[in-house]
């Protein structure tokens, strides 16, 4: 697709242009906050009751996992937690749009996407507990390690996508980032590279309205999805609390990437219902009334209303999901508590793939140093 036609596509991408960020946008929406199914001129979706229930289950389990992690942090089992509360639809919808051979580059909040990739939730908790810096093998589920330095991973995703294209594979890549991250130079460079090389990558921006204490207005004057036009690829804003719309829009973008159409920017308009992390106090910078407004757009309640209207789920199903989330919470709780602290000597592990003389020397010195305490009372200062 030529640059001209992709740019043109972005302007008719279903979202009305607005002068400034922050105004209520017209979004791609397939399910209203009340759970009513609506049609969109460009995006459609037709899911079986079983698939709909699957999305519901994903979101409920993800939310439950998240809530359990917050509790574990409060209990001192985790050092920190970045909650995804409110962003379940954005993450489950987009994650479920990926194929196993696609590759995902997350930030640090994509617990729902990880779930859709089959990553064991316990794997995500190691870094938040402080026993590792990630540690899972990204190639097991094609789910990269969490990246804390804001924006970096968008370039990695672009490079990975360039590699996919060079290999002639028809996989696609998806990079997650936030509204705040959209300001980073790395993200602009990722847009540039992906456009120039027509890389099969989807940039999935969860605009949850806040970057710690800064509202999106501090990052941009135009709605974020419109940025894509300047780089020569389409951008679309989707209701990030509508799992059906997110699924449909992300599927289309991934399909476009797979078929040689190049990058797409998807802006999922959503809301960070919790604080930035467990270290943050959101009451210092935002009104609770804002959060309450978004509560009415809750992604799970919305899908449940639809399921009920459609009679696509019964009490037995809900009870089953409830029991499953109880079991998940229990497994997570027990798993975290059983996670051992690393052996201090592992500090020297995996610094290099091919070894390094200095690391070997320091490892030996440290081992000897630690051994020198073996005969004195443990832990006591001399």
């Amino acid at each position, binding site marked *: 697709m030529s640059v001209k036609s992709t740019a043109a596509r972005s302007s008719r991408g279903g979202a009305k242009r607005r002068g400034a960020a922050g105004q209520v946008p017209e979004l791609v929406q397939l399910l209203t906050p009340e759970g009513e199914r609506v049609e969109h001129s460009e995006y459609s979706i037709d899911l079986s009751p079983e698939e709909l229930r699957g999305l519901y289950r994903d979101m409920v389990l993800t939310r439950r996992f998240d809530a359990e992690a917050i509790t574990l942090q409060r209990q001192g089992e985790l050092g920190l937690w970045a909650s995804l509360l409110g962003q379940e639809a954005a993450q489950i919808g987009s994650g479920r749009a990926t194929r196993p051979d696609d590759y995902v580059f997350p930030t640090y909040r994509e617990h729902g996407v990880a779930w859709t990739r089959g990553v064991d939730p316990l794997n995500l908790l190691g870094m938040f507990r402080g026993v590792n810096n990630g540690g899972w093998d990204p190639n097991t589920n094609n789910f990269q390690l969490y990246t804390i330095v804001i924006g970096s991973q968008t370039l990695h995703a672009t490079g990975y996508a360039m590699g996919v294209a060079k290999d002639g594979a028809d996989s696609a890549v998806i990079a997650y980032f936030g509204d705040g991250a959209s300001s980073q130079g790395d993200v602009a460079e990722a847009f540039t590279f992906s456009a120039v090389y027509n890389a099969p990558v989807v940039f999935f921006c969860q605009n949850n309205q806040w*970057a710690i204490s800064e509202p999106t207005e501090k990052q941009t004057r135009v709605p974020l999805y419109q940025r894509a036009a300047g780089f020569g690829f389409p951008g679309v804003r989707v209701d990030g609390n509508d799992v059906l719309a997110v699924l449909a829009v992300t599927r289309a973008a991934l399909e476009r990437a797979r078929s040689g159409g190049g990058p797409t920017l998807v802006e999922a308009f959503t809301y960070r219902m919790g604080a930035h992390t467990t270290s943050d106090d959101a009451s210092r910078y935002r009104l609770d009334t804002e959060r309450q407004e978004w509560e009415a757009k809750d992604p799970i309640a919305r899908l449940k209303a639809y399921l009920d209207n459609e009679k696509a789920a019964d009490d037995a199903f809900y009870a089953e999901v409830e029991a499953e989330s109880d079991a998940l919470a229990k497994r997570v709780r027990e798993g975290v508590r059983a996670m051992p602290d690393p052996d201090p000597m592992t500090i020297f592990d995996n610094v290099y793939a091919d070894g390094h003389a200095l690391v070997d020397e320091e490892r030996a010195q440290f081992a000897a140093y630690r051994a020198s305490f073996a005969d004195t009372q443990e832990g006591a200062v001399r």
Partner: protein
Amino acid sequence: MTAMTLAKAINSSLRTAMESDPKVLVMGEDVGKLGGVFRVTDGLQKDFGEERVIDTPLAESGIVGSAIGLALRGYRPVVEIQFDGFVFPAYDQIVTQLAKMHARALGKVKMPVVIRIPYGGGIGAVEHHSESPEALFAHVAGLKVISPATPSDAYWMLQQAIECDDPVIFFEPKRRYWDKGEVDTAAVPAPLHRALVAREGTDLTLAAYGPMVKVCLEAAKAAEEEGRNLEVVDLRSISPVDFDTLQASVEKTRRLVVVHEAPVFFGSGAEIASRITERCFYHLEAPVLRVGGFHSPYPPARVEEEYLPGLDRVLDAVDRALAF
């Protein structure tokens, strides 16, 4: 004299600087309404307005690059990098532009930019929130690099850094933010780059800056119980280093151990050891020893206590130096 935390001392210092010079600006991520993730800039935006206390977009290169432009226009920006590990998007602007602008213009422009960086470990954080990258800046000509250890120094050294016409990287020992100390805002402060003897002793000199000064003082206290009298020099400045003060101390004690959290390999301790060896060769009874981080990424929080130089590691080096 008022007792205040180190964080509060920095806050007061910023307030004083903004009151006395309308060209002083505070910029960074979350510094305004939130008052910074450590509340160091708490209340400043409320009192000085959004024109002077600026919540910037999330872009460190942008923060430092635009601070350079503001400095060219006559402002004195004090920018905050939220955590040590997030300074690197700005590293290009700092190294290729901020540090070299004055020389490039043959002295015709000045770069009075202060970059505040909470640094160091010990707070149980996730990756990139516990690093000590000071040597990466000290290696660059054109930058001044300092790190206070006490609330009083935090207050005064920041005043002096803001008044300085050169770019200053101001490393704040984040794990000491909540430590209290006396601050005399009417005092006459020591010169910015002067090292201070924090504790007098005769048997060995411990040299440190920032978060490790407290550890060294505790080590000296513990050593005292074993009949050893250690001197502690708070270097305060990493570029330049006050070698005269350190030399005088080492000529007296004849032994030196340098302590920092940063990895020892190519760290500031290496430079200090080398220079002191040159200056004090015939006074030294032992090689200058270093205690610091390993040649490894900063480890996960649950093992950081093992990684960080603590009392035992410092005293181990003291033993080894005294055994010569």
